[in-house]
């Protein structure tokens, strides 16, 4: 997928970008080990989703932070790959936002903002805002 294709012309994207700019990366310390400590739980143990979600990796979340997250995504090798926020369209449409979302203490290489029609756990149209802690190449390798 060409990089530009990820950024649709929806005004939502702009809102998400503004939101991102205001996010602090010094939030709660979030582990970079193969699996984060409680209250984080494997998403596939909470809702019917595969262990490894193509394009994202193995997801963990503190259920108390649903639906926004952060979700922490790990590769098959146990390496932290991204911090993901799942932001429902309905919240944007109500002109509401999010503040003080936590993030993994890891450098951000690049960001994707991807529309998702819904899935178990966040069963409504939403955007995935993905702070990638790995290169574009490594992120692309998670597609399968």
């Amino acid at each position, binding site marked *: *997928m060409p990089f530009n294709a990820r950024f649709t012309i929806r005004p939502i994207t702009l809102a998400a970008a503004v939101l991102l700019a205001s996010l602090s990366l010094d939030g709660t310390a979030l582990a970079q080990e193969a699996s984060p400590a409680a209250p984080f739980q494997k998403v596939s143990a909470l809702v*019917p*989703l*595969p262990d490894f979600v193509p*394009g994202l990796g193995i997801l963990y979340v503190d259920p108390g932070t649903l639906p926004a997250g952060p979700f922490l995504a790990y590769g098959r090798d146990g390496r932290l790959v991204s911090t993901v926020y799942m932001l429902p369209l309905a919240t944007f449409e109500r002109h509401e936002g999010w503040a003080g979302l936590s993030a993994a203490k890891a450098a951000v290489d690049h960001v994707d903002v991807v529309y998702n*029609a*819904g899935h*178990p756990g966040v069963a409504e149209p939403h955007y995935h805002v993905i702070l990638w802690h790995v290169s574009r190449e490594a992120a692309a390798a998670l597609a399968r």
Partner: protein
Amino acid sequence: MTPVRLDRRRFLEVGALSLAGLRVLPSLRRAGEEVVVRLRADPAGSRVWFEPRGVAILPGTRIRWELEAGVHTSTAYHPDNARAPWRIPATATPWDSGYLLEPGRSFSVTLTVPGVYDYYCAPHEAAGMVGRIVVGEPGAPPYFPAARPEWRPLPQAAAHGFPEVATIVRHRAIR
């Protein structure tokens, strides 16, 4: 989660009825055959859909939903399924596939009661992932009782997702 049982007696009655009273569309698949509906998604999960989303069949035809990509369900619009509004024939048995997670997984029902059946995908209903099956040749408008307060409302995107019954009957399958 139990698939609709093929009630042999009712199946035979319906068969006799359709031969005697209804004009049977020659191009419809014969009763006892199987029709496959694929549950699809693009790689990002941005677009999700049933293919075909509208299909016309004869009573006694088996419908099989097969997962191609993503995580989906096939769930009949019926109050037994999470207080959904009632959008299948009055005497038909509702179904719910549960989540289909692995590509290639499938779920089947055999529909014997003539009429219009609307169904949805549980995680994607709000995104408008719905489908419609027309069994037999409906002579009357679909039996959909008026909304009741104890049933949840139909999401807007879902309400706009159903192909017209007449269009489905004319084309047999709507993509």
